[in-house]
């Protein structure tokens, strides 16, 4: 849950009380200069015009934010002793906090390991990945080089324990044997007619490149620092792009659709807390110009900012509403070879039903955005012609990607398909195999009724 107002001591305070929950205001209403939680220390004032300023002392504030992080990690079994965790680091404040917190967890685990007699619980491994988007934004190459330098020094300062840094050029999604990956990336992006579609395609490619570096380097978890605020924007952009069905897959704490499951330990923290924490702890961040948005994504960000002005807890309410949507079977940590997993962990995972059974693959996924598709949408899979790869691509994609990412006419689409990373194309073939027609072929000899049997 994004923000349980009754217990929430962060910035989420619903002035209008329009969500019906009771706000337990502390008994003292007057301006006291003592932390409302511990009642001893002097409260911090950030002076940033945000809500809940001057109520908590530095320590209680930090403990609260870290507490939410740790609760998310333990209750969703995000990081267990035998895991090898890759932290996606963009240089921004959320991923900086995520990196810092994961580091602190690792230090604690190391301390416990060294203090324990039997050394039964190993310390999980941590790596850091940064996606270098210079190929997509050539004008930013100097900025990118400086950023990477800074990231290198930041990561090396976070040891012990030492963490590997992987700087991943985004064009690496095309694989090492691709002819001119940078050029291919530019051609791919240029063939997308819609600005928002271009931006979204780049995001999907980023995720693919992170997945690639994670699986090639033996990581089994990918930590992404998405906070409540980002998720609130995502809820609205998904709604506005017709992606209501797949929305619940994107906003849970765990997303195990991917080869390397993604976990979101900062999902319950709002951006204001994260920014304040960076200020408090002197965590430096870098804002890259390529982060700016255009089109629909930008419009939604501005809209959310406007709503936040009107009511600072709006982001929390949006995420809380979306959290009531039914998640998918893959929104849990997957079943794996348990031989490396300590018994205690196995027991906890089983007891809280935190693992999903990977054999339940009943969803079709869009090859571009990996969104699960409503059965009624994908019924068109049955009707395409054999051999026409571009039509297969069209048929396999969700309606949102079809509109905003795929070029409109057949020949441009074919060309576009040739630029796509192989991984996405193989998804198309995989779905082709699962189509209804193919299945019917296999059992045709046992069917008693005609072709036109209604399913």
């Amino acid at each position, binding site marked *: 849950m994004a923000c349980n107002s009754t217990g929430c001591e962060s910035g989420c305070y619903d002035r209008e009380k329009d969500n*019906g929950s009771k706000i337990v205001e502390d008994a003292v209403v007057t301006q006291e200069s003592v932390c409302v939680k511990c009642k001893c220390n002097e409260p911090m004032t950030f002076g940033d015009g945000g809500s809940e300023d001057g109520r908590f002392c530095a320590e209680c504030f930090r403990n609260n934010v870290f507490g939410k992080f740790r609760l998310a990690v333990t209750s969703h079994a995000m990081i267990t002793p035998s895991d090898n965790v890759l932290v996606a680091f963009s240089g921004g404040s959320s991923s900086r906090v995520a990196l810092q917190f994961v580091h602190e967890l690792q230090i604690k685990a190391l301390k416990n390991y060294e203090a324990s007699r039997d050394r039964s619980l190993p310390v999980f491994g941590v790596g850091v990945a940064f996606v270098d988007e210079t190929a997509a934004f050539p004008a930013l190459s100097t900025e990118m080089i400086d950023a990477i330098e800074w990231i290198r020094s930041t990561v090396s300062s976070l040891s012990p324990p030492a963490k590997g840094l992987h700087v991943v050029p985004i064009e690496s999604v095309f694989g090492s044997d691709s002819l001119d990956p940078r050029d291919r990336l530019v051609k791919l992006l240029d063939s997308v007619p819609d600005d928002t579609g271009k931006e979204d395609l780049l995001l999907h490619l980023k995720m693919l490149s992170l997945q690639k570096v994670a699986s090639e380097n033996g990581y089994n978890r990918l930590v992404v620092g998405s906070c409540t605020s980002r998720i609130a924007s995502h809820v609205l952009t998904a709604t506005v792009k*017709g992606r209501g069905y797949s929305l619940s897959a994107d906003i849970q704490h765990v997303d195990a659709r991917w080869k390397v499951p993604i976990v979101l330990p900062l999902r319950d923290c709002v951006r204001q807390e994260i920014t304040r924490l960076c200020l408090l702890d002197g965590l430096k961040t870098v804002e890259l110009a390529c982060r700016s948005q255009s089109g629909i994504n930008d419009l939604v960000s501005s809209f959310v900012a406007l709503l936040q002005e009107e009511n600072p807890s709006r982001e929390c309410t949006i995420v809380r509403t979306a959290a009531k*949507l039914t998640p998918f079977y893959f929104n849990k940590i997957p079943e794996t070879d348990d031989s490396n997993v300590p018994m205690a962990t196995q027991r906890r995972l089983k007891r809280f039903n935190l693992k999903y059974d990977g054999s339940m693959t009943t969803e079709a996924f869009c090859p571009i955005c990996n969104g699960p598709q409503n059965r009624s949408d994908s019924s068109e899979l049955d009707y395409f012609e054999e051999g026409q790869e571009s039509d297969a691509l069209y048929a396999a994609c969700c309606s949102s990607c079809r509109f905003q990412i795929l070029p409109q006419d057949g020949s441009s689409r074919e060309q576009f398909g040739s630029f796509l990373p192989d991984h996405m194309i193989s998804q198309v073939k995989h779905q082709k195999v699962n189509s209804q027609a193919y299945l019917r072929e296999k059992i045709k000899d046992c069917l008693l009724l005609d072709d036109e049997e209604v399913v």
Partner: protein
Amino acid sequence: MEAKSKKSGATRLCCLCNLRRPVLKRPKTLQQICRECFYEVFEEEIHQVIVQNRLFKSGERVAIGASGGKDSTVLAYVLSELNRRHNYGLDLFLLSIDEGITGYRDDSLETVKRNEVQYGLPLQIVSYKDLYGWTMDDIVKMIGLKNNCTFCGVFRRQALDRGAALLKVDKLVTGHNADDIAETVLLNILRGDIARLSRCTSITTGEDGPIPRCKPFKYTYEKEIVMYAYFKKLDYFSTECIYSPNAYRGFAREFIKDLERLRPRAILDIIKSGEDFRIATTTKMPEQGTCERCGYISSQKWCKACVLLEGLNRGLPKMGIGRPRGVNGDHKKETKKPGPAVKSIESKQCGSLDF
């Protein structure tokens, strides 16, 4: 759904009939088409919505919620036209609600009375004064300009049902258009109302209540309705309700207007998302009973209208607004209490052009 690329400056033709000169760009698809094709495609799409969603049965008596605004005027016009053209076999009526707003409702009622003559549809008017003993003018005098939309919306819903009962109709149709429904989807997300979110995209609602209602304009863009009314020179009343400026819905409306400019199909995409949201059917839906005071459908002991009325009559304007207290007691699972404007998704909300 593509905008025809601008070729050399040669005289373009309507891209649907290729005969006449295009006079407009279709808001939904940006196609450049002539007037006749616009009428045709506009009317045909609505006909398809009616047929594919099986909104009516032959022989049904149907009341059109008529405010005199553009949506209900166009609805009355198109529905009677399609009824004739495709032989739906419906008995159509106009049903209008007089909330008692001087300088607004009394003017729009004149429009409806003219519509009665122009379209040849019998008109029934039901007033808040008769039903409840209060006009909106009285109510606003008492409670001010915050939460007034809540009263109006709740009262109107019941008033429409009472009017429908007087006319002895089988169904009620309202002019809610795609923009309205998209706004409602967004509003329900913003306000945390998952129960409403699951119902608000249904084209037909209230099948288990006193009178089912449907929205033939569910996929029709507001801009196209305005365009149709403009070109057909239909008679309608176009001012915003004088009491509505503070409605929260305004946020969603502004956003959708900006969105439409960037990507016209986004309005339909929002509706599609709303239809596709995975909401468990076991999500707590209100249990349906009847109001002890007036017998109207209600999920609580007293229906909302009675609670609000009681508050007004007792001089307690906050009764029924905000958290539960008073008549209905302490309900632990009281549904989210929105502020102004979003009380009833079935009746037209304030802040729209024609109420």
